[in-house]
């Protein structure tokens, strides 16, 4: 090698060294910047959406607890309005702009087209302790042999009532359909308030009323019986569930067909209606409208009172992991942590019913007392947890003519039955 060549090589080496140093320096400073300026400790950020802005405090408490357990993972939560969330999420997923951790409103986000069916989420097999979860929750998060979601909270739907009004008219919690109708008529005839707040503009509460009535006959077997084809909603005893709703509709609040859900909720909370079909997390909303509310809760009675009253039990909220998550492992760590005992206690105290057994509300306030009452009623699985029966809510929405007399109970039942995917064993 000549002197000139040596010089050239050494100059090249020197330039490479300088360039390498600059590059390394840039990378280090870049990574330090990504670390959020916390002294250069390695950390990762998971983006998450939350669709109940009214429960922001509960989410913040969950995040604080998560941060204590996992200081290396930061969770950046965006709060999305509840009503628009399904459309917003769907649009984002189609456009490839969803968050790392996706909150679902119920089980349809797990198996539906914004979940596993759409191919947007990752399985969480082996990452969750299934044995800690309630059996119904285990079924709801499992689809085609894989576990797809981390369950955060569950719901129970039954009937709230105004205790004071019941006492005033000498009424007690009904134990059969006849008693339910008699109670409704007594309240309606008394004339001071409507028997039921039944906001039916979007047909969602009528769906739950009908679902409760059917489950009060089929009980725990409801989903299995319907999806195996052993029972049909058009069976005469089940058609009575639709007829019960028609009969009870004479005691619903005036103009109920045009009443939006929020207005119906306010009617009940303000004492202008004696009963409302409601979920476990609705109670907080009622007391927010009327802190003096003195409400009771009962399960839907069976037709002749021979079986225990029932409430519907389903998955209220779960988190799934987006296939496009920037850090899948960190995202899975966050979502599965939400099923931990510590997280579930926060859920029970602030958000809704937990997805694991063995917890009790830690407070002594009216909400905690109400949750204890709700947890004390026998529960049967909600159709909404399963892809084979989940379409029934849309079918009920498409059949509002039940209340205008254009559809008979039989026709209504037949229409809803068509939404059930029957797969005989």
């Amino acid at each position: 090698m000549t002197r000139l060549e040596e010089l050239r090589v050494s100059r090249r080496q020197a330039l490479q060294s300088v360039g390498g140093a600059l590059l390394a320096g840039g990378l280090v400073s870049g990574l330090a910047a990504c670390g959020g300026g916390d002294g250069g400790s390695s950390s990762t950020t998971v983006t998450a959406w939350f669709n109940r802005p009214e429960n922001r405090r509960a989410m913040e408490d969950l995040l604080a607890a998560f941060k204590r357990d996992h200081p290396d993972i930061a969770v950046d939560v965006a709060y999305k309005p509840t009503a628009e969330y399904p459309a917003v999420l769907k649009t984002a997923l189609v456009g490839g702009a969803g968050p790392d951790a996706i909150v679902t409103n119920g089980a349809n986000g797990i198996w539906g087209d914004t979940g596993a069916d759409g191919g947007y989420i990752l399985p969480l097999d082996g990452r969750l302790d299934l044995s800690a979860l309630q059996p119904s929750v285990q079924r709801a998060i499992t689809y085609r042999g894989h576990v797809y979601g981390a369950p955060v909270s569950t719901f129970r739907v039954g009937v709230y009532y105004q205790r004071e009004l019941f006492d005033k008219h000498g009424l007690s919690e009904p134990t059969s359909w006849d008693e339910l109708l008699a109670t409704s008529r007594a309240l309606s005839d008394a004339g001071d308030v409507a028997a039921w707040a039944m906001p039916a503009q979007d047909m969602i509460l009528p769906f739950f009323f009908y679902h409760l009535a059917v489950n009060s006959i089929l009980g725990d077997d409801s989903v299995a019986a319907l999806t195996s084809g052993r029972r049909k909603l058009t069976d005469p005893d089940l058609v009575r569930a639709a007829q019960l709703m028609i009969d009870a509709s004479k005691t619903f609040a005036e103009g109920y067909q045009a009443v939006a859900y929020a207005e119906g909720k306010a009617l009940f909370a303000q004492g202008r209606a004696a009963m409302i079909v409601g979920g476990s997390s609705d109670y907080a909303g009622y007391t927010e409208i009327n802190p003096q509310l003195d409400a009771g809760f009962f399960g839907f009675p069976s037709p002749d009172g021979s079986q225990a009253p029932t409430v519907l039990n389903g998955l209220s909220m779960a988190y799934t992991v987006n296939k496009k998550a920037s850090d899948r492992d960190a995202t899975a760590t966050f979502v599965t942590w939400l099923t931990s005992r510590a997280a579930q206690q926060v859920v029970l105290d602030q958000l809704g019913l937990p997805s694991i057994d063995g917890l009790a509300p830690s407070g002594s306030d009216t909400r905690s007392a109400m949750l204890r009452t709700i947890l004390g009623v026998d529960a049967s699985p909600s159709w909404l947890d399963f892809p084979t029966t989940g379409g029934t809510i849309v079918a009920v929405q498409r059949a509002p003519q039940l209340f205008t007399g254009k559809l008979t109970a039989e026709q209504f039942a037949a229409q809803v039955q068509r939404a059930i995917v029957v797969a005989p064993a």
Partner: protein
Amino acid sequence: MSAGTVPSRGAAVAARRGSERAAALRTAARPLLFLAPALLLYGGFLVLPTLGSIPLALFDWSGAGPIRHFVGFDNFSAVLRDRQFRDAALHNAWLFAGLFVFTNVVSLGLAILLDRRYRLRDVYRAIVFLPYVLSTIAIGFVWQLLLSPNIGLLNPALEAVGLDGLTHAWLAEPGTALWVLIAAFAWQWNALATVTFLAGLQNVPRELREAARIDGARGWRVLKDVTVPALAPAFTTVNVLLVIFAFRAFELAYVITGPVGAPGGSTLLMGVSIYANAFPTSGGYSSATNVSYAMAQGVTLSIVLGLVALAMLVLLTRRERRVR
């Protein structure tokens, strides 16, 4: 040809023709230049998505996930068999009929009143035009607050003036709900219709009416034989726009009577039906949608609407020519 020589006659003619052609091209291109931004927006946000929706309507696609199953024209035949959609089309037809009468009577009458000279005329004009600039969603909530069976203001107001017999569950009875909805749409539509008629009236030469009066014609006769015929172009514009407005109606109906067209589907419009199939409306309890079906509904609506609007345009333009 060397510099300084006189160009031949042929070359001069060719050069003149060339410059004339360039000038003609510039003249032709100028309007296009002004139209370009609007055309780009129209094409990008309306024409292209509409055309893009046609192939999607040939699949069975929920709106998320992979597009898998080709179903040909199944969605279109299902749309034609869909009784709810046919009912919705009928409601749209009622909406059009109601608005047609309202527009050509009330809006025209208002325009004539606002065309006269009196104090505060401009204030009244602004008031009439106000609904057009207000948010449709806000208008919907106001109508709902007025007419709600439980918290509505209209029934207590009727009771307060001793008209108890007129109180109704306006939005809850199938017999009144559609008419209430038509009234809400009329209130909103009236603004544009009145202003368009007013603009038309201001183009009618005052001398024409004065001449008719000198000839002995009085109020109704002048209106019928002079003003209305001279308003033919305004009638064409208003009524063609009305067809589009009435058959594409969505937001106000969705806010006032919800996703199922309460009560009992008696106010369901085609726009609401399409939306309910394309987007989840079960409060998050179900994310199930059928976007391909919604696309087929939309394409069917666009074709029918296009044909109806075209037919009206042809008819009204012919009428315009006859009047001239």
